[in-house]
């Protein structure tokens, strides 16, 4: 049926194996405690009143009736946040940043998107809070809204923020604009490059607003104690990110806030922003008891952080043999209500698969009256790849070139300087392309009518950032591993494996625990495809610390110098006396009577992350009468550097591919002309179901990352980059229509047929 192939050169004892995850039993028996599962004595339930308008001025809010409603214990508005009491003079240059952060959590003067929080109510239960919400009277002055990213860029467009000015690489424009930032990189001479080309093609592409679609809604439980300590329990990708966001908005020192990360039911970048925590905390302070706030699914769609809609123009020049001579793109990304779209990531990723001599990329970060966008798996890169990889396919068709050979001819490799200026280290794009070319999928003949095959590749730089790990050796030889990285999909397993590998002990003897922000050093989010790499490195470093201390202890026991002792594969032995030897467990047993236990620690901020590349192949069939696409075969190839737990690496590749399939075919926010989302349910926001998919074949390519002892690269993100273009290219193969707008719905495919002169069929 399908194959899972791992191309590995190095064998390890634990790394590369497929053990059962440490948190597995709790998660298959319903015992794992997610954010919504908190059950504090006396806890209240809260609901958030949200704006029905995408853009309006708040003239007045009257909460008196809600406060008087039986069962209501606290009601807050933006007036209860510290920002309300701080003046522009006091805040100085930080005024705007705090205003945006505070207003995003609860609007003070204007609502900027439908779903924007206005007030919150804590009551004895959620039904009572909901009933009381209807009693809050808000007087709005509706304002003209702007929804489309290109409309928002025009002179005269309604301004989302009256005072926002364009930041053009550090230079601030003199008049207000919805364009929050313009960024630009270039290399070589594009005019010369295009002049040298035998073929120059230029196209425009658009993508719709989409959502990460994690199944667990946002949640927060907070208890602000009378001693001033604030405790927060929440589902987040980064407990320290929540702490920082809450500290900022509530003007608290971080030491006053302890964030305990609960199990998290999916994130994909969407659970980095702290939407509920600060307001839940303020409700708790007012009510004097713990408060829990849960979002509904429609609140998740309307008021969390979807991924941006985008517009892009791509221009590529090539020689007749396919060699690229010049590339150019403009990408405008919709940031939602506040600046911060991944336009920068988009332009950096756009041509990162290719060795570009002459290139220019420009990005625009644009605010509109939609929820503030957030990261979504390789933020910015999928939109950019849809354009670039689609146009490359069109060029290959024009020049009758094999799409994989074209990419091999132009592929980035070690030493390639990217447009933003960095030079690639050892990367695995070529190996991925070769694996795809040599795969049975690509070699098999495509059969049947209305079928098509598509290829595309994708890039994500991956990142390092800070991670902290502490591990303690118990007297029975097991190791407790404490970390600050939350586990979204196998983090405990992957870090425990790297620990066990380094210590030379059994995987089962490592017990990982994810701890709160008081119990471990600063740890950046689980995101950016960094965790197996950076927290893995932290675990390796801490394990090395343990090893050194174990050697010291053995030296003490044997009354010899540490230089005489070596630690190999979990055995501590005297280099010159074969009699003197401890297994890890034996030495652990001796710790109790030779000075006590040993703890290893590490706090690191590593560089050396390895860039991630993916190549996807898809076969599909389009029903010409309905325009409906059925994906019939899918192969995802990706360089993992070294797959720590191949099962979860395959899972990342498959999950990313399927999110991409959804993005390609059916997922989109429908907005009315004013910016109200029309489909905030899983019924009409159509994520793929089991029945919409084949098995997803995976090929893990392992080109070791020189920046990690086991060669690990991030794997979470590259897999969502290629699917949209791969599917679009295959749809072209099946129908002859070039789809340049996501999603490529049945309706759009039918329309493309009608535009190309097919009769409506009657």
């Amino acid at each position: 049926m399908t194959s899972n192939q791992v191309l590995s050169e190095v064998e390890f004892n634990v790394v590369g194996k497929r053990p059962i995850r440490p948190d597995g039993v709790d998660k298959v028996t319903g015992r794992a405690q997610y954010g919504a599962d908190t059950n504090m004595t006396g806890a209240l339930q809260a609901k958030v009143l949200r704006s029905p308008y995408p853009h309006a001025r708040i003239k007045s809010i009257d909460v008196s009736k809600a406060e008087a409603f039986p069962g209501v214990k606290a009601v807050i508005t933006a007036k209860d946040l510290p920002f309300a009491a701080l003046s522009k003079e006091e805040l100085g240059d930080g005024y705007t940043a705090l205003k945006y952060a505070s207003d995003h959590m609860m609007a003070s003067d204007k609502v900027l998107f439908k779903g924007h929080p206005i007030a919150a109510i804590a009551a004895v239960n959620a039904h009572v809070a909901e009933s009381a919400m209807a009693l809050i009277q808000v007087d709005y002055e509706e304002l003209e809204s702007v929804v489309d990213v290109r409309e928002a860029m025009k002179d005269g467009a309604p301004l989302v923020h009256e005072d926002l000015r364009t930041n053009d690489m550090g230079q601030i424009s003199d008049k207000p604009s919805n364009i929050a930032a313009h960024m630009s990189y270039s290399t070589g001479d594009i005019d010369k490059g295009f002049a040298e080309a035998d073929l120059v093609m230029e196209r425009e592409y658009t993508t719709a607003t989409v959502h990460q679609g994690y199944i667990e809604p946002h949640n927060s439980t907070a208890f602000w104690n009378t001693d001033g300590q604030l405790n927060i329990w929440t589902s987040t990708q980064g407990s320290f990110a929540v702490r920082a966001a809450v500290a900022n908005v509530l003007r608290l020192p971080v030491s006053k806030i302890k964030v305990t990360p609960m199990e998290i039911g999916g994130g994909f970048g969407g659970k980095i922003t702290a939407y509920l925590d600060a307001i839940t905390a303020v409700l708790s302070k007012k009510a004097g008891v713990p408060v829990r706030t849960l979002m509904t699914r429609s609140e998740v769609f309307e008021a969390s952080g979807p991924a941006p809609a985008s517009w892009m123009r791509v221009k590529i020049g090539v020689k007749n043999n396919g060699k690229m001579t010049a590339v150019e793109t403009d990408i405008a990304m919709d940031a939602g209500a506040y600046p911060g779209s991944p336009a920068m990531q988009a332009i950096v990723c756009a041509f990162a698969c290719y060795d570009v001599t002459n290139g220019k990329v420009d990005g625009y970060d644009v605010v509109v009256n939609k929820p503030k966008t957030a990261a979504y798996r390789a933020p910015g890169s999928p939109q950019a790849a849809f354009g670039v990889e689609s146009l490359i396919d069109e060029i290959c068709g024009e020049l009758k070139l094999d799409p994989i050979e074209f990419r091999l001819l132009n592929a980035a490799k070690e030493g390639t300087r990217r447009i933003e200026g960095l030079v690639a280290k050892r990367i695995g794009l070529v190996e991925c392309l070769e694996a795809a070319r040599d795969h049975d999928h690509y070699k098999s003949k495509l059969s049947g009518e209305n079928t098509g095959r598509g290829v595309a590749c994708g890039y994500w730089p991956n990142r390092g950032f800070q991670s902290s790990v502490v591990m303690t050796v118990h007297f029975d030889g097991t190791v407790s591993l404490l970390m600050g990285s939350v586990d979204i999909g196998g983090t405990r397993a992957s870090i425990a494996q790297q620990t066990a590998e380094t210590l030379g002990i059994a995987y089962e003897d490592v017990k990982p625990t994810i701890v709160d922000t008081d119990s471990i050093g600063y740890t950046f989010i689980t995101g950016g495809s960094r965790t197996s790499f950076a927290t893995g490195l932290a675990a390796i470093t801490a394990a090395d610390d343990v090893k050194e201390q174990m050697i010291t202890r053995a030296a003490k026991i044997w009354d010899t110098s540490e230089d005489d002792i070596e630690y190999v594969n979990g055995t501590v032995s005297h280099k010159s006396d074969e009699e003197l030897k401890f297994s890890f467990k034996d030495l652990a047993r001796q710790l109790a009577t030779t000075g006590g236990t040993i703890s290893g620690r590490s706090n690191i901020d590593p560089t050396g992350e390895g860039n991630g590349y993916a190549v996807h192949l898809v076969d599909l069939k389009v029903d010409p009468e309905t325009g409906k696409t059925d994906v019939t075969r899918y192969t995802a190839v990706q360089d993992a550097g070294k797959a720590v737990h191949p099962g979860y690496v395959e899972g990342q590749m498959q999950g990313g591919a399927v999110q991409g399939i959804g993005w390609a075919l059916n997922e989109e926010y429908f907005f009315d002309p004013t910016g109200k989302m029309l489909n905030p349910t899983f019924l009409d926001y159509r994520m793929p179901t089991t029945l919409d998919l084949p098995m997803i074949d995976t090929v893990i390519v392992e080109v070791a990352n020189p920046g990690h002892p086991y060669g690990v690269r991030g794997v979470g993100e590259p897999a969502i980059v290629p699917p949209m273009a791969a599917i679009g290219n295959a749809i072209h193969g099946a129908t002859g229509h070039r789809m340049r707008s996501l999603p490529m719905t049945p309706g759009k495919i039918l329309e493309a047929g009608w535009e190309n002169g097919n009769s409506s069929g009657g």
Partner: protein
Amino acid sequence: MLQSLTGGARQIDCDAKNIRQVIERLDELYPGIRDRLVEDGELRENLAVAIDGDIAIMGMLEKVGANSEVHFVPAIGGGS
């Protein structure tokens, strides 16, 4: 990316021991560039500096070798 200030020059040679000095040299050559790179004495939030291809974690204090290649690049976060 800052060629409007450097008169189009993309590559500039200068003597410096750390990033702070690199920026000072640049600002001497191209007045105004410091404000575009630095805010409150630190690199701007959306900016990272790469030395010989590695993102530098010490920011302004990061040491620079005699033949180092220094790049001002976007700071990129991530998703999943």
